[in-house]
């Protein structure tokens, strides 16, 4: 009798655990990406006398998951290309286009609802101590790494995307 009771209790618990697992799996989570492959409106402006290059593009921030998610922090950093970097001052910043305009680059945490896409502007400014032809020769393609922190149903996840600008073109 007691063994049967234990068996029944275990069966109930097992069924409950399996049901929850199926429910959680079906419910899913957010799936937020900086879709750099779909970046558009890329623009590179070179100012030879001032030795300055400005790069800009729009990157879709898309949630293709089944749940909403929050992008709390976003950081971007140009890749390190060796000694030439010591003669360059590179600043990179991201701005959500539908957020209040800020000049200081502060990323305000944002909810990205499921099946929605926001546009993010990536702006890179390079101030060089050497002439720009040399910069383009040594860094024909500038890569910018975007690190972003997403909070979803499963907790905090960090992701990475890579944007690129063709400086030789």
């Amino acid at each position, binding site marked *: 009798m007691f063994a049967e009771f234990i068996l029944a209790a275990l069966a109930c618990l097992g069924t409950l655990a399996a049901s929850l697992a199926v429910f959680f799996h079906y419910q899913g989570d957010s799936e937020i990406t900086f879709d750099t492959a779909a970046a558009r409106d890329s623009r590179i402006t070179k100012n030879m006398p001032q030795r300055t290059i400005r790069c800009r593009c729009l990157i879709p921030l898309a949630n293709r998951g089944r*749940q909403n998610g929050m992008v709390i922090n976003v950081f971007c950093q140009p890749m390190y290309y060796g000694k030439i970097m010591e003669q360059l001052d590179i600043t990179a910043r991201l701005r959500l286009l539908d957020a209040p305009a800020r000049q200081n680059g502060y990323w305000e*945490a944002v909810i990205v609802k499921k099946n929605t896409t926001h546009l993010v502007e990536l702006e890179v400014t390079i101030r060089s101590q050497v002439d720009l032809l040399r910069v383009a020769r040594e860094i024909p393609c500038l890569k910018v790494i975007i690190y972003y922190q997403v909070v979803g*149903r*499963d*907790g905090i996840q960090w992701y990475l995307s890579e944007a690129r600008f063709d400086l030789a073109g």
Partner: protein
Amino acid sequence: MTLDVIPLQTKIITPEDRLFQIVADYAGPHLRPGDILVLAESMVAITQGRLIRPEQVKPTPWALALARFVSQDGSLSSPYAMQVIMNESGALRTLFAFCTAALTRLVFGRRGDFYRFAGQQASLVDDVTGNMPPFDKHIVLGPKHPEQVVAETRERFGVEAAIIDANDLGHTKILAATSGASQKLLLKVFRANPGGNADQQTPIVIIRKTRS
């Protein structure tokens, strides 16, 4: 008799600020006898240091599981906010509230029992993105001891006082009010949320009765 509703813009209030100093600086010069001084609950909570970043919270499997049953319109759909509430109200109480609410919803179709049983903090917590920068990356709890705060406010400033949680959806909750502050009047005034819900930075509102 008409009402003047005066929202007061302040600097960004941080945990380093002292509530009564802020009230004295921004509301003090404007207060008149008979006024009702209304403080935003998030301002009181922030000055009490009741905020935490999600990175500082380790959600348990219970918090991860319970949060999945909360609609994403609510702050507790985040496992971090759920864990903060479990730490605040007690894990057992939160679990009890969850089970009871699930039952009453299934059997009687009644909603909101989770918040009734889990305690006031469960309905006051604001998840990440629920507050203006620099607290957009924090979970902000409700204030502690709101009754004491309003009593001390009345004592210091000589006017009736209340702490209110209002939003642009017309939902108003009076956390505490001194005896002379009419709850009916407060609800009526704050239905329109005169303090705003975005970056208006007006966490103090004075309600003044004037003869027209």
